[in-house]
């Protein structure tokens, strides 16, 4: 990949922060947007804006066409069998909530179990905790080793005949650990359980093939993969989505609402995927995400992952030169991708992040929405995180190391 050419596509990378060139290392939180995505969104509003699926006029038809073609492209990107298996949502959080509320509330009973891991982002814990309070099912937490890797034996042993769904991050947003979700999906299926994969940190960075993994659900966010905020995807197998009731009610998700004086309203749900897309959809978001997918596909997801791994290996090597730096995560770098969590001796994570910010380097500090992993497994109050993407360079890593060495 020609990184310098890629960088030219990202207008924000020309910015200076505190009189230093911007170095953006917070890609696990959100990514920057290439001109192509920004232009696609502008073009939608300048040329094609109408309400999709609502009217017979030209703009509504154009908006519908762009919205549904976007779905086709994104569904193909994750190798869904058909576009109808891709529901547009606001992001990973809404996708998991959709499953927890629509599938969970209708399929989980008191004696059932849901399995999650201790490395999950809060978005893959809290929806299950909320729905468990409503339905009374039990949530089991699979252990994570002290190096941040999943305890596979524990995860597998906790899948029993009582387990109805297992939920796991494909890639940890704290350590960058890559989980073998294909292996665990098979174990879940062998026990009659479903599998939900949180793909927020994997879909943007590697080839994710839902048919190969055989997962039942996959959740991901557009803004973490060059796309706009407020758009993401929930992949679900057709036979499951068909049986699930709508998550929200409103326009678009119904076929008809027939009112009679004696019976009140008789409502028929729309077909997939619109049954789950109540209200006017995020059309420009879908268009922007489709353009992002086109951009990534042109680079090749193998190349994307290769670049990030190379950068991670380089960064880990350079950060080891800093005596005050402690890194968290596996020492076997083949098990992880472009996320490095670390701390600096005698400094809070926020101090470190603010020092970096002073030099134009954006890193994340805090729990990264994974408090159980920080407190229970890694025994940390918080950590700093540098996360890489296609436009980051070794020179930028060198600059981070320079700043950290100065502290």
């Amino acid at each position, binding site marked *: 990949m020609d990184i310098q050419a890629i960088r030219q596509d990202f207008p924000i990378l020309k910015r200076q922060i505190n009189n230093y060139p911007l170095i953006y290392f917070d890609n696990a939180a959100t990514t920057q947007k290439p001109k192509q995505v920004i232009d696609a969104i502008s073009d939608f509003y300048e040329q094609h804006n109408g309400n999709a699926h609502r009217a017979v006029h030209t703009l509504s038809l154009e908006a519908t066409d762009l919205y549904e073609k976007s779905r086709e492209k994104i569904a193909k990107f994750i190798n869904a069998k058909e576009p109808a298996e891709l529901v547009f949502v606001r992001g990973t959080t809404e996708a998991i909530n959709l499953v927890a509320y629509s599938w969970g509330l209708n399929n989980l009973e008191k004696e059932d179990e849901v399995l999650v891991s201790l490395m999950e982002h809060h978005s893959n814990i809290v929806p299950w905790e909320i729905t468990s309070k409503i339905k009374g099912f039990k949530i089991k937490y699979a252990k994570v080793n002290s190096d941040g890797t999943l305890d596979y034996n524990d995860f597998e042993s906790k899948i029993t005949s009582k387990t109805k769904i297992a939920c796991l991050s494909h890639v940890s947003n704290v350590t960058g650990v890559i989980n073998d979700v294909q292996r665990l999906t098979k174990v879940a299926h062998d026990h009659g359980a479903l599998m939900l994969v949180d793909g927020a940190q994997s879909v943007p960075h590697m080839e994710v093939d839902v048919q190969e993994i055989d997962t039942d659900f996959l959740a991901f966010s557009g803004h973490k993969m060059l796309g706009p905020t407020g758009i993401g995807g929930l992949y679900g197998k057709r036979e499951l989505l068909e049986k699930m009731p709508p998550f929200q009610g409103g326009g678009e998700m119904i076929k008809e609402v027939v009112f009679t004086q004696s019976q009140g309203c008789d409502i028929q749900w729309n077909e997939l995927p619109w049954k789950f897309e109540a209200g006017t959809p995020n059309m420009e978001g879908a268009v922007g995400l489709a353009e992002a997918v086109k951009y990534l596909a042109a680079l090749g997801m193998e190349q994307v992952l290769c670049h990030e791994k190379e950068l991670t290996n380089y960064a880990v090597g350079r950060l080891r030169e800093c005596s005050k730096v402690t890194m968290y995560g596996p020492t076997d770098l083949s098990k992880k991708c472009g996320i490095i969590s670390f701390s600096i001796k005698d400094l809070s994570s926020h101090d470190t992040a603010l020092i970096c910010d*002073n030099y134009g380097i954006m890193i994340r*500090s*805090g*729990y990264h929405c994974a408090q159980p992993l920080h407190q229970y497994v890694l025994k940390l109050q918080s950590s700093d995180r540098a996360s890489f993407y296609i436009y980051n360079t070794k020179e930028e890593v060198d600059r981070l190391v320079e700043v950290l060495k100065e502290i």
Partner: protein
Amino acid sequence: MATIEDYVARVEGTCGAEKDVIVFFKYEKKDEAIANILKKAQIKNKIAGIIFELAFKDTSFRLYTSGKAIFRSIKNKQELNNLLKDLLL
């Protein structure tokens, strides 16, 4: 008469077990805010040329030349407001 709001853009609780509070000063007033604070607080240490470790009354905090300050062990909003009032005004 000047108020805290003249100087402070935003106050946020940090993410993490530390429960620190970050005060973001308004960009156009940050230099004035920093100067006011440095006049009143005691400088304990200066780190990397950009962080002042300061003490004021019974509170220790860090001030960044980029216009932010981290306060630790702040009990409530009123306590922070009183501190900022004394430091800034």
